[in-house]
């Protein structure tokens, strides 16, 4: 059986084994660098995943709304007057999504869409005795909506079961109105349409604005309160690939002629922040990588000088200058490979330790680290490549040594 580069690898391994303390030092150097990189990557990506997850925990991935007439009609016209007029138009009246049953049914057939929930929402007032609060009414199908935002998991008291007579409201709103489960609240909607409801449950999504304003009803009473019989104002969607949401939104926008807004659009600022965080991590990684590369290169350069005579002998024994080159490239690669294996383990250990400590003070996990096998394989491959590349210049010097002077002077 022919093992590729057997001869060069054998020499490389023996050389590394012989220069034990040097090899150990540089392998530790590589390990340290890789550990830092793995730790940083795991930490940052865990943190970011967690942030995104939290953000998406309380909103749809894509929201379909009826298109603004103003936007359509005055598309080509610009200027302040348009903006003003558009604002007026919006404030005036809720508009229903045309043909929403058909669209909602069609959306169910998309493989990448995991949940579809039509809802009707609009402004209203909640009154309880003297207390009077501006709220947002959300008329939903509870089972379908729960697959978009897991409200049932966030109940403080009662249950998430809005009916024709029962509503579910946020914790902060309940506190401000001074009500709890079983108490009655009067809701006043569009054009003085009003009704009295019993509170079936109180939720806390952990987002101030929602906990202070959201009032869940079934679709029909909400339609009545908002004077939108048979209509809905939006369709909420979740998808399996969250970062593909924007692309799908554009597609739906085009196909159904409705306004589709993805979470990526509404959270552009968050995404920007994540992106620049990733960039600074990349910068740190690059610096670490470069210093590791210089470390490998300088140690191998010393080794080439020390082994001048042996290199000359190898040449006299019929080794080509290419074989000598490869001997040193393989040394660089091996140092990278072994160093990264150790470093990855150490990095993971650090991650484990960190999450262990970090989890204690907070109630819920501060972050959820996902240092997968892919990350480790990637780190190993990159470190090996770095080793080979940084070995190139010392290896070239070894390959170009004049055997006569190398053997004579040693």
């Amino acid at each position: 059986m022919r093992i590729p580069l057997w001869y060069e690898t054998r020499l490389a391994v023996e050389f590394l084994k012989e220069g034990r303390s040097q090899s150990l030092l540089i392998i530790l150097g590589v390990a340290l660098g890789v550990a830092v990189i793995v730790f940083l990557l795991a930490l940052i990506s865990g943190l970011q995943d967690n942030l995104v997850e939290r953000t998406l925990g309380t909103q749809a991935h894509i929201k379909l709304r009826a298109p603004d007439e103003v936007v359509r009609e005055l598309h080509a016209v610009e200027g302040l007057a348009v903006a003003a007029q558009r604002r007026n138009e919006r404030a005036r009246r809720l508009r229903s999504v045309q043909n929403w049953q058909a669209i909602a049914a069609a959306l169910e057939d998309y493989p990448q869409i995991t949940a579809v929930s039509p809802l009707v929402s609009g402004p209203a007032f909640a009154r309880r005795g003297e207390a009077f609060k501006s709220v947002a009414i959300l008329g939903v199908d509870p089972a379908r909506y729960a697959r978009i935002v897991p409200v049932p998991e966030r109940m403080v008291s009662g249950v998430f079961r809005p009916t024709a007579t029962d509503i579910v409201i946020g914790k902060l709103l309940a506190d401000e109105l001074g009500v709890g489960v079983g108490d009655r609240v009067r809701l006043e909607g569009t054009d003085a349409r009003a009704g009295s409801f019993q509170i079936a449950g109180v939720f806390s999504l952990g987002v101030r604005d929602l906990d202070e304003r959201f009032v869940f009803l079934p679709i029909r009473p909400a339609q009545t309160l908002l004077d939108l019989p048979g209509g809905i104002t939006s369709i909420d969607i979740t998808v399996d690939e969250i970062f593909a949401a924007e692309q799908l939104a554009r597609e739906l926008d085009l196909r159904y002629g409705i306004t589709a807004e993805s979470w990526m659009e509404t959270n552009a600022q968050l995404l920007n922040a994540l992106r620049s965080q990733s960039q600074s991590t990349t910068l740190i990684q690059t610096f670490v990588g470069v210093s590791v590369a210089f470390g490998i290169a300088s140690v191998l350069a010393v080794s080439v000088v020390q082994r001048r005579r042996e290199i000359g002998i190898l040449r006299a024994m019929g080794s080509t200058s290419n074989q000598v080159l490869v001997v040193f490239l393989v040394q660089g690669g091996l140092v990278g490979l072994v160093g990264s294996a150790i470093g990855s383990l150490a990095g993971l250990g650090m991650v484990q330790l960190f999450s262990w400590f970090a989890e204690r003070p907070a109630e819920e996990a501060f972050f959820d680290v996902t240092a997968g096998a892919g990350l480790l394989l990637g780190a190993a491959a990159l470190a090996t490549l770095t080793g080979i590349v940084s070995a190139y210049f010392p290896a070239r010097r070894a390959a170009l040594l004049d055997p006569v002077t190398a053997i004579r002077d040693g």
Partner: protein
Amino acid sequence: MAEASTGASPAGQREPILRLQGVRKCYNVGTPVETEVLHGIDLEVGPGEFLAMVGPSGSGKSTLLNLIGLLDQPTAGEVWIAGHATRQLDDVARSRLRGQVLGFVFQFHHLLTAFTALDNVQLPRWAALGREDEEVAAQALELLDAVGLKQYAHRRPKELSGGQQQRVAICRALIHRPPVVLADEPTGNLDTETSAQAFSLLRRFNREFGCAFIIVTHDLDLAEGCDRVIEMVDGRIVQDRAGHAPSLE
């Protein structure tokens, strides 16, 4: 004197295994200190010849050996080895040819300290094959046995005496049965008795394997034990004659 070579050769009528024609070597070419250290060497060596090269220090013996060994390029002239003209060959071809037709023994044996004696002996074959080989290992062990070092096969050079190391180096030069073995002061670093032993070892392999040997030495007694003695002075061959006591073993 250039033509005298064949006269003393016991294999003169056969095709020479080595032929030098008009070989010159200049150092520091193109600088003010350019010096020619070999002034047009002509030499033929037949297969299986056992040849000593003597001469004062600085006369160009090592330079000549390096040119024959394809470790260096002549400034002018041509070197033929085993039928190959070598002037036009690139590094890969020269390296391969070295690994096939040439064996080297150096003054300071130069074993690789990271490898055992057995591995050191196999190195030239590993380089040529790109892999290890059972047959090569068996041959190497056989050679070590022949020089009385079988029980030291798995020791590293540091665990061997100077004489033992030189014997390992001789085995390494012979593992691929090269038609030409070059030895630059192979006994220069050994005491008289060990020198004689090493020398007779070279002679034995010369007889057994039929390899031609070119041995640079300062020891005139040893030189006279060779079939042929070449004397160099100032970059020229000034004498080319038969040894006085070629029977010395």
